[in-house]
């Protein structure tokens, strides 16, 4: 915690929210998504890469994300993920839940 990293147990279940939030701004591939989450959280959130891909595939299977193989700017073809309207609605739902949870937690531990 001292280095700003958050305990894994607290992050449990937040990966879909983080993924959808990151993808709100455009298409990205798996490695980029992991990097963006790390960057935006200042290194505090480092979701296990082993849970990132199952989350991506689960969101895709549920219709929240759409994946396409296409050439990257440099290097080989990548699997890019894009948020769908269904994913947008799911994100709004997750955000509301998280806000309620965070507010309640803040009040409880204050």
């Amino acid at each position, binding site marked *: 915690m001292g280095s700003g990293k958050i305990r894994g147990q607290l992050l449990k279940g937040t990966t879909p929210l983080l993924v959808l939030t990151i993808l709100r701004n455009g298409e990205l*591939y*798996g*490695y980029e998504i992991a990097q963006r989450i790390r960057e935006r959280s200042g290194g505090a959130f480092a979701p*296990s*890469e*082993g*849970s990132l*891909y*199952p*989350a991506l*595939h*689960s969101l895709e*299977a*549920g219709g929240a994300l759409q994946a396409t*193989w296409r050439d990257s700017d440099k*290097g*080989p*073809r*990548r*699997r890019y993920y894009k948020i769908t309207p269904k994913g947008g609605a799911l994100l709004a739902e997750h955000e509301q839940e998280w806000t309620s949870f965070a507010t309640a937690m803040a009040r409880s531990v204050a």
Partner: protein
Amino acid sequence: MAKFVGALLASAVLILGTAVWARGFALPVSIAVLLAWAIVGDVELAHRDARAASRNKAPEERGEGPLPATALDYLARLDAELELPAPTRAEIRAELADHLSDSIAAIQADGRDLGFATGEALVRLGRPDELARRLRKAHQTPRRLLAGAAGGVWSAGVGAVQGTIVAATVGLIAAFTIGFGLRPVVDFVATHAIPIEFDPNDLAVGTAMGAALAWIPAFVAGRRAVKACASISARPARQVGRFWALAGILALGWLVVFVLTVQQSWMVVGFELAIPVSFAAGALFKVDAHFPAVAGSWLAVVGGLLLIGPIVLGSVLGGFSVTSGSSGFSTSYTDDSIGWNHVAPHSPDQSINLGYSGSVVGGAPTINVQDPASLSAFHDLRIEAWRANAYPGAPSGPAGDDLGLLDTSYSAPYATAPAVVGADGTIEDPISLIHSRTPKWWIFLTGVGSDGQRYWLGSRPFLVDRTFSGTIWDWVTASS
């Protein structure tokens, strides 16, 4: 593409050539066109799948940025644990290979060597079996399983229609081959070598061919169901194939055993039971392979069996028969040689004139007595039904239908009923034969004379030649 155009041109030539040569053969031509398109469609689908698989190949297979051996080993172990359809596995493998490549490069950029960077990148992904389990869970949702089941049922229906088109075409080819191609050969052999007779309309040949052709739609339906279900539910074809095989055996087995009503014989029972087996074979046999791969090695074998099998079966079961010489079938027989006197002695009064009318199956047969007074010398009149066998050497058709050899292995009739002579001289025959598998019967009118001896009456008894129409269950539970 070249094959596609070639198949298209070949189809066009075939259609035009057939249309010019055989005007009026609209149905065979239509079926040939549909078959050609079905084959072309399948070839194209296979090519498309192959192209898709090529796109989804992992980077090292495409020659793009080889990964260290430990990373490749990790991906191989992950792949082995995934238990997902091949295209999905290929996509996951390619995606994670990209990820590892980026991850290793990023760690190396921080000044670490390749070995350390690879190890670190793999640690971040976690154990391959655990990652595989999570990915499998992400893909194999209950909703997809339900959709896969529904898609499988739909595809089974589509496959049955496709298979029926193929079967009809094969049947037409077989019919033409046997009717026009084989017949002259048989005639030549019959004239110059063995006195052989071939009847392509014989029930044994027809049943064998018809039932064998029903296996094709069943096989195609099973195969299509599994492929669709596996694709939609994100499960390996081998895995869902077992369930489809079982479901097919139960559903089609129930259908052929308890519902399907046809003219039965032990041979037909065997062929009918092979229909669900054929579905199960379609669901299990090389179900991961594409159509051309299977067709390449098996189409000729299956086609050959479909053409040759019925002929062999027909030969064994009666389609072919060797005649007894140019004199043909002799109809001379005596009351003893045909077995009638096994029932009782023939009445000394030969003037009793009887007739038989009506159908044993579904009708109310009657014995008509021209002169009821002629029966006054007899009492305890009764109708007796005795089993009969085909008369040796009798040809099929009307000439042979009129005779049957009484089965003297039975010491008693199958059934008897009192014969009551009506005012108009008719005797109703109430004996039901529908619960027996025996096709030929002799129906006797017998009576006890003034000497206390029972005789069979009339100039001859009546032959009933019936076919057993019912389900397999009816057939199996019927008496012999």
